[in-house]
């Protein structure tokens, strides 16, 4: 795995590189600033497989660098791990929103680094799976069913608003209960996702999911949110609890958004995705369970949709868990 580590403290880079070597990562390059990092990245023939970025650097900081790297087409899906002090958790939201997949805290702990690098490997494996799938599709539009099952999370390369599902889980695991309390999860379920999958080729299925992702993203009226495809026709969004999100309004907007594609879908003989929006799932302030349970709750609620009998205030407002 070819890795670029960026930190403006040379000695810390030495420590990090030694640590990576001890974890059997030997192809680690280094940059002492964000500017140098960009020069190195742009000069590579063989792109990097992973980036380790210090959050706080003089000049362009790690979050700005993360955003710049994500803007490069070849690195839209490359794993980015931020390196931060425990006390810089305020930056974590910004880092995830800039496209980071995870973060590791200083002082570095070898066990934690190994765990984070396992996550990197799983993202790379997912990304390679998508590339393989694309190649297989190019060879035969029929091959997708053998390559991927309907229930797997999917990275949709053309859906700019989507983040990998593992990143969404990482984000919740890192938030901590207090900050988890300030977020809510919303599930979006494609009712006819299974039918679409059965009747379409791999490429068509990914295109339809990308259209669905775009309609869902447009319906989320929040500045800061993360949206992922969880597999089985389920999308999950993490949205600030204080945003003005309304499941009912979102449902209407998604339907209106997809309606614009109806003629194209009919021409192609494809069914338009029918999307249910679930009631927001939240967690209690003193709930100390698995934070990712909120995702599962959201998926369940997405599959149920908005009950017709729900009181109007509940249909529009933020609900308790």
């Amino acid at each position: 795995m070819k890795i670029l580590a960026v930190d403006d403290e040379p000695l810390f880079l030495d420590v990090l590189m030694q640590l990576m070597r001890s974890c059997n990562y030997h192809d680690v390059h280094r940059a002492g600033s964000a500017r140098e990092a960009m020069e190195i990245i742009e000069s590579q023939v063989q792109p990097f497989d992973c980036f380790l970025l210090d959050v706080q650097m003089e000049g362009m900081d790690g979050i700005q660098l993360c955003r710049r790297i994500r803007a490069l087409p070849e690195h839209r899906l490359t794993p980015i791990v931020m390196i931060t002090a425990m006390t810089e958790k305020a930056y974590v939201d910004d880092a995830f929103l800039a496209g980071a997949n995870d973060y590791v805290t200083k002082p570095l702990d070898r066990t934690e680094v190994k765990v984070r690098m396992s996550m990197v490997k799983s993202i790379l494996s997912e990304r390679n799976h998508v590339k393989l799938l694309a190649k297989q599709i190019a060879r035969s539009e029929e091959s997708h069913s053998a390559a991927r099952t309907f229930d797997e999370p999917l990275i949709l390369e053309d859906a700019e608003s989507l983040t990998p599902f593992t990143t969404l889980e990482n984000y919740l695991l890192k938030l901590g209960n207090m900050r988890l309390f300030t977020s809510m999860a919303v599930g979006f379920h494609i009712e006819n996702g299974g039918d679409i999958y059965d009747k379409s080729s791999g490429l068509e299925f990914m295109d339809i999911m990308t259209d669905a992702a775009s309609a869902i993203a447009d319906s989320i009226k929040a500045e800061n949110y993360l949206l992922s495809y969880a597999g089985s026709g389920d999308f999950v969004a993490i949205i600030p609890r204080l945003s003005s999100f309304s499941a009912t309004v979102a449902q209407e907007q998604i339907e209106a958004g997809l309606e614009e594609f109806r003629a194209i879908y009919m021409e192609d003989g494809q069914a338009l995705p029918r999307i249910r929006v679930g009631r927001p799932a939240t967690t209690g302030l003193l709930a100390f369970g698995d934070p990712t349970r909120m995702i599962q709750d959201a998926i369940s609620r997405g599959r149920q949709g908005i009950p017709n009998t729900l009181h109007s205030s509940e249909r529009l407002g933020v609900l308790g868990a």
Partner: protein
Amino acid sequence: MNLGSEDAKPDVAEAMAGLRSRFIDSLVDRILHMEDLTSELRRTGDYTTALYGISASAHRIAGVAGTLGFGALGSNARKLEEAITDGLAQYEPRETFLRTRTQLEALLDSLEAVLETAP
């Protein structure tokens, strides 16, 4: 740093020992840099530049020290960095400097303590 049992390998332990020595060797320069910044501050009255410089210096020490096993030093550096960041968010630079002098002294003491106990 928690190296775990696998890191008992002589080459890894040796490399880390070398990095610890280099860190200790760098401490004199780091102390002098912070003292230069405070002297410059007294001369020019530019509290903002000095505070950002001291904070950046503390940030770098904090990142490396804890990872190399100098926990107390890392903790004092982090406290100073936080105090400066919080102070600048609430007070004027001069007031922030006055309020964070104790943490600065504590960090300088920690740096000197590491130097004194170094082999």
